[in-house]
């Protein structure tokens, strides 16, 4: 058993089936799907409240998604912990700012990579809330429920993502 935990990579089918089982468990035990992007909205509200005080809670969006630690916020915290455990057990934990594929195309400058990642992150946070979900909430949970909104959103995630990656790296890399 321990040997499996120490492996660097598992079959993507085993991993996917496990995630599908966790999603089913979330419906059974918590009556909710797995999702992560509303946690970022709540987190953003909590940070803003730390600077600007409780008037932040009056914003229409934060009345819908109160800036409090809820199920999804602890889930995102759990993802960090779980990935850390997996990486440490397999010996693949590594502090790294510039992934190899990025470095091969744009060079090893960490400032450039982090700036591009930040710009991408801002668009992603905006788009996830705009579309009402991310690759988890729409991509894995919404599609599994056969929600029309989720299949449309996921198609658009990948249309936008593939187009952007092709522009950045040149098609056919």
């Amino acid at each position, binding site marked *: 058993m321990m040997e499996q935990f120490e492996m660097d990579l598992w079959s993507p089918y085993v991993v996917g089936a496990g995630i599908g089982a966790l999603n089913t468990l979330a419906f059974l035990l918590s009556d909710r799907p*797995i999702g992560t992007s509303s946690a*970022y909205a709540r987190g953003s509200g909590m940070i803003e409240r730390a600077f600007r005080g409780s008037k932040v809670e009056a914003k229409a969006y934060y009345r819908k998604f109160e800036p409090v630690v809820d*199920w999804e916020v602890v889930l995102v915290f759990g993802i960090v912990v779980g990935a850390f455990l997996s990486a440490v057990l397999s010996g693949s934990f590594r502090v790294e700012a510039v992934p190899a594929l990025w470095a091969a195309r744009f060079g090893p400058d960490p400032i450039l990579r982090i700036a591009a990642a930040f710009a991408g992150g801002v668009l992603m946070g905006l788009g996830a809330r705009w579309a009402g979900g991310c690759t988890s909430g729409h991509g894995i949970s919404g599609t599994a429920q056969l929600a029309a909104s*989720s299949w449309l959103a996921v198609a658009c995630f990948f249309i936008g993502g593939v187009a952007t990656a092709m522009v950045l790296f040149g098609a056919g890399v």
Partner: protein
Amino acid sequence: MDLAIEDLRSNHRAQLAIGLFIGIGFGFLLQKGGVTRYDVIVGQLLLADFTVFKVMASAVIVGMVGIHLLRSLGLASLHPKAGSWGSSALGGLIFGVGFGLLGYCPGTAAGAVGQGSIDALLGGVGGILLGAGIFAWRYPSLEERVLRRGEFGDKTIPEILGVNPWMVVIPTALILLGVLFWIEETGF
């Protein structure tokens, strides 16, 4: 509905523990699947590495069958999100551009932080928090002008087609399985 499950679902502290537990399992699996890595995600967007698709399709097949089984047994109800062209399609495309630049998504960025990726922490988590904050700030006017354009509600595909959900679940699972077999055969 089973009373014990009702109790569990309304127990706030138990729910936070369950969320944490499921999150740890989710993060562990994402990292073991390799999908917390920038190179793997961008490899998928460049259509060179189909790991992300394999993980997502397997998760959808198992989750779809599992969730619909629970529903048929009366143990769970669906929570489909409402959508519109203005929100799902336009928001999805904005997300997609961010996806291509960042190379992680909100869940896998958190996983990448756990494996030591600084770009996922400073760029990913930091950027997503700011982007979500910008959305919250502009929400009232976006809601009025864009998000409701072409609304189609929280309908599921079986509801739109007017059929029993299993009439869509089974063919969708078979199609996804077929695509996975085809990808393996062609060597992606």
